[in-house]
């Protein structure tokens, strides 16, 4: 290590510091220079862009949003035809991204928790299997996994005819290279009452839970909240279904000519994306869960046992709440990663935001600056919203310190 000699020349001139060496003045000058540099960079970039765009004859501004899109989208949760505007196409893409992100987050969390617990299992086979799962999936690029599921697994599935479907015959459940076909629930008049009944049951479950907790605090008597709630959620909609005269029917898929008609289809692109995203992210969540549980000191569960709590109550009331504090912050960043990684959909043709907006719309309008900026802003907003929500959730479970 170099030996430090020599103090700055002004050091012996005690008390009076020249402006050169005054940290405040230097800081101000440095920051002013930084601002000037950034302004210059932005200015030259923008003026170059204006020149280049004018030369290439590309319009600028957001006017293109109102124009006719003129392309079709394979999967849409809101009405969309190729006569719709670019704005509508944008929302179709945004919605598709959000749907795959939300379902993916849910699946990844469930699988991740199961695998994370399995890695801590005393069962040799289960533990080794979970380890192999984690080490394999998290060391292979997500894009490769997506392409593998899409091109090497789902695309080489047999066609509807080769699976053995007869034209015109309805099937309940079928997987072929067009997707996964399942019956679709067709609501008829009065079906909304079933939904109402379900909502009422959920709300009732919530209030019963609060009441039971209050009563337990006051009297010490327990109440089977979970079983009651479950019974309510199942029985109430079922009862409504019967009382209103079964206002729902199932529509099955069938092969008509060369195409599958009817039913509820999960397209191969969606399936591959969901499978890849959730299995990949689950391997990271598993490690987070494992680390979180290991972070809870052994003394905590011993203390719980000493108080006479049974093992499942120990984990539910003592270990898990403490582990959650360790788990939630990294879990948040995994959720964010999953949301951002859903943009890889563009590689397998799932119509997400990047694929529709950053791909097709960009190619048709040529307005790269606007399109890419908006795409980035959307992801930035989604990221900030997710982390804001998770921060709120985190603070609600955080340790209350004196």
């Amino acid at each position, binding site marked *: 290590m170099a030996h430090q000699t020599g103090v700055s020349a002004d050091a012996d001139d005690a008390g009076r510091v020249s402006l050169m060496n005054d940290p405040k003045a230097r800081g101000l000058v440095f920051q002013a220079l930084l601002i000037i540099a950034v302004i210059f960079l932005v200015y030259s970039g923008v003026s170059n862009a204006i020149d280049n765009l004018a030369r290439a004859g590309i319009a600028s501004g957001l006017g293109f949003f109102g124009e006719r899109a003129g392309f079709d989208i394979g999967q849409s949760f809101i009405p969309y035809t190729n006569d719709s505007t670019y704005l509508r196409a944008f929302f179709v893409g945004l919605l598709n991204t959000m749907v795959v992100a939300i379902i993916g987050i849910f699946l990844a969390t469930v699988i991740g928790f199961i695998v994370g617990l399995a890695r801590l299992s005393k069962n040799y086979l289960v533990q080794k299997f979970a380890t192999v799962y984690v080490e394999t999936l998290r060391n292979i690029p997500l894009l490769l996994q997506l392409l593998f599921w899409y091109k090497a697994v789902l695309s080489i599935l047999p066609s509807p005819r080769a699976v053995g479907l007869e034209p015109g015959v309805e099937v309940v459940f079928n997987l072929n290279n067009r997707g996964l076909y399942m019956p679709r629930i067709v609501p008829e008049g009065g079906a909304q009452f079933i939904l109402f009944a379900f909502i009422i049951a959920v709300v009732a479950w919530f209030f019963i839970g609060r009441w039971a907790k209050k009563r337990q605090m006051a009297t010490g008597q327990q109440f089977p909240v979970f079983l009651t709630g479950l019974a309510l959620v199942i029985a109430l909609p079922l009862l409504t279904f019967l009382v209103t005269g079964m206002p729902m029917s199932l529509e099955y898929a069938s092969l008509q000519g060369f195409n599958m008609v009817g039913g509820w289809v999960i397209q191969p692109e969606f399936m591959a994306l969901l499978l890849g995203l959730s299995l990949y992210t689950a391997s990271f969540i598993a490690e987070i869960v494992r680390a979180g549980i290991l972070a809870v000191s052994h003394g905590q569960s011993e203390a719980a046992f000493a108080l006479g709590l049974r093992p499942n109550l120990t984990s539910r009331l003592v270990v898990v709440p403490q582990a959650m504090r360790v788990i939630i912050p990294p879990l948040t960043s995994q959720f964010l990663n999953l949301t951002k990684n859903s943009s890889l959909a*563009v590689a397998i043709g799932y119509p997400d935001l990047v694929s529709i907006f950053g791909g097709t719309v960009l190619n048709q309008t040529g307005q790269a600056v606007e399109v890419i900026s908006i*795409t980035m802003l959307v992801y930035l907003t989604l990221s900030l919203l997710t982390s804001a929500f998770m921060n709120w959730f985190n603070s609600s479970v955080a340790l209350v310190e004196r």
Partner: protein
Amino acid sequence: METLPTSIRYVRSEESPTMAPPVSTGGVGGWLKENLFASTRDTILTIVTALFLLWIIPPIIDWAFISAVWTGDSREACLGPGTGACWAFVEAKFGQFIYGRYPIEERWRVNLSGLLLIAGLVPIAIPSVPYKRENALYLLVVFPILAFILLTGQFGLEPVETALWGGLLVTLVVAIVGIVVSFPLGILLALGRRSEMPIVKMFSVIFIEFWRGVPLITVLFMSSVMLPLFLPDGVTFDKLLRALIGVALFSSAYMAEVIRGGLQAIPKGQYEAANAMALTFWQGTRLVIMPQALKLVIPGIVNTFIGLFKDTSLVLIIGLFDLLGIVQQNMNDQNWISPATPATGFVFAAFVFFIFCFGMSRYSAYMERRLDTGHKR
């Protein structure tokens, strides 16, 4: 007990039969009982997992080895019904998978660059080898210059344009350039984020949070489509360089956060001690803070590099042929197209990525254990 027998007196008149020996807790039987069949739940779990493994493993072994095609020079070899992996495809295309379309007679330059890299990496990875500072300097400054000269072809070497590069070469170039550029940038940004100057801090926070909030794929789109618009007329970058700029900016934001973690872990006393020794900010940072902070975050840096290494595969979306890109391109080769080819190619690429990433993650875990001395409560 209310129902006691009338006579509780009992005198044993004969020897009781010998009991069976206790269930072994050692040996194979004991191990099985303890680790696989400890309780009813465990037994069920074991059986379900074993059945699942029996369901998936034999077909995988069959696909990868028993019915795999090992030799052949066209798709004909892999077309038969029930054939497994088409390893002949990988064998035939192996050169492409490593070097892309790099001219065959110039491939020694790629190999030499690889050797130079290994010559720098091995000693820096082994903690007991001295001269770490010089070694790091070699890896961060000398090696990139040498590799640039060799790979692009300067000083009388035959120039090879980057459009011909491909395969593992591009994967490694993108990953290494990303890490080499992001390291100094990340240090500056991390220092900036902890700076007391409000504007420096603000710019650093905005920069870091922006790149961390957007997906890499949009960054790559930006650098390949939007960046050329912001440059003066006549200035053009080649495609690889544009991807490199995007990757470097993106990874420096992540690197900054890793290094910031290390800076935060340094006790305040170290900063104060540096000030007390009359070291300037940069002297203190260089001689006192950074050596400690960087040592703490070696595992984090390796993990960032693993992430970056995996993310390099995204460059295929903007039309570069990295390892995954070139495998995918060769799958569509008319001479080799067959139902088994895609899976074979992907499995091969996955295997290569796995070797690199798994090796690095083992190394990171090893460093973590090594550095984790004296901090355990």
